[in-house]
């Protein structure tokens, strides 16, 4: 599991936001496209790609993609 692949998977869940917007420090909750739907898409992506089940509450403790990546990584071990 690497941050580069995670960012690619993360950005693929957004339809209207340009991929160049996404990097490790992106505060995803501040994006215009952020909603329940994108949150669900990302939780589903993490479940299917990394076999990690995050709750929305856990996700809400993170602000940047790096923080979310770290949370998923910590559960993988």
């Amino acid at each position, binding site marked *: 599991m690497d941050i580069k692949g995670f960012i690619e998977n993360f950005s693929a869940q957004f339809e209207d936001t340009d991929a160049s917007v996404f990097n490790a420090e992106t505060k995803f909750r501040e994006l215009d496209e*952020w*909603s*329940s*739907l994108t*949150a*669900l898409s990302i*939780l589903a992506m993490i479940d299917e790609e990394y076999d990690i089940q995050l709750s*929305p509450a856990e*996700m*809400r403790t993170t602000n940047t993609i790096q923080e979310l990546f770290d949370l998923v990584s910590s559960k993988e071990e």
Partner: protein
Amino acid sequence: MEIEIQVVTYDDVKRGVIVNGDNHNFYKEGFEMKRKKVLLNNPNLSDDSFSAAYLVRAEAEVVGALFPFPTRIKVGEEIIDAASASSLNVLKEYEKHAAGADLVLAPIRDKRNKGVVLADLSEDGLNCYQAFRFKDFALPKMIQPRSSKFLLQNFGIKGFSLSALSCIINVLLKPFISISLYRLRNFAKRFNVVRLDVVPSWVDDMVLKDGHKYMEVHDHRWLQWCLDNTFSSENFHHKSFYAIYDNNERAIGFFLNYEKTTSIPYRHIFDLRQGTIMEWGSYDESKLSELDITKIAISYFSKDLAMCQFATTNKVVLNKMKSYGFIHHNYHHIVFKDNTKMLKDCGDSNLWRLRFGYADSLF
């Protein structure tokens, strides 16, 4: 913002638990007397610790809700416990905080549910479940308009134009529908069709042994529950179960029709009387096919409906019913999530026994 999920169990519901902070009446409306009676009568409710409501709270206030109920899914020879649900609602201003995600995930993350199945979803609800990669089975919906009025309303026509156009089109439409119904009733006369108030137990074999690997379990107990209960507060709503017998009085099939009024306020359509074929089954489709049952079931709807409908993936039925005035209009979505991650082929719609009357569609 602190967002949390409150779980209300069926035991809480029976004990009349009071939900504080329900300022928008999510819980109150979800468990008003009629709905409460339906949900407590569920034959699959074998354990009162099952979740009856997931409430999303933000700053102590209820800002969204989902009302799950237990159902069962047949997988091969095994029957697994699953959840269904109705009325996913979240206040608009909390969508940005992903409050809807908590509700969609709640029945999935409940370990006792090996699957989650839903139907009859709003557009927003469908988007949520698609986002979480539920398997989505979209059954083409066929409607037979028996009056042109609601079709014209659907296109935004109202007032005098609506009345005038409706009259003109009905002059052509009504005779065509009358001829179609005459043909269908003549066809139905070949069979002995009997309306029953009690769903017979022979239905179980017809449903559960129909050859499909996957299905929501619609046995006689489940069908009886659907037949006897409703969420609707409208005056006009009734469900009818019919058994089909051959000349030797052997049961060869069944169907369940549902007639009710519906309204689509944003289209200015009110009190539309519609009939839907919700369920059907046949012992031997080479002797009594889906097309046969569809034709019979349509002929058994009331005469005063504004439209009737069914949904199927069977191409023969879709094509043949066009000659009786049916047109393809939209899709009926059924979504399924495999919580076990073991059902690798569960996304193949050909392996499913799919019917309009899934989940809470019959209420």
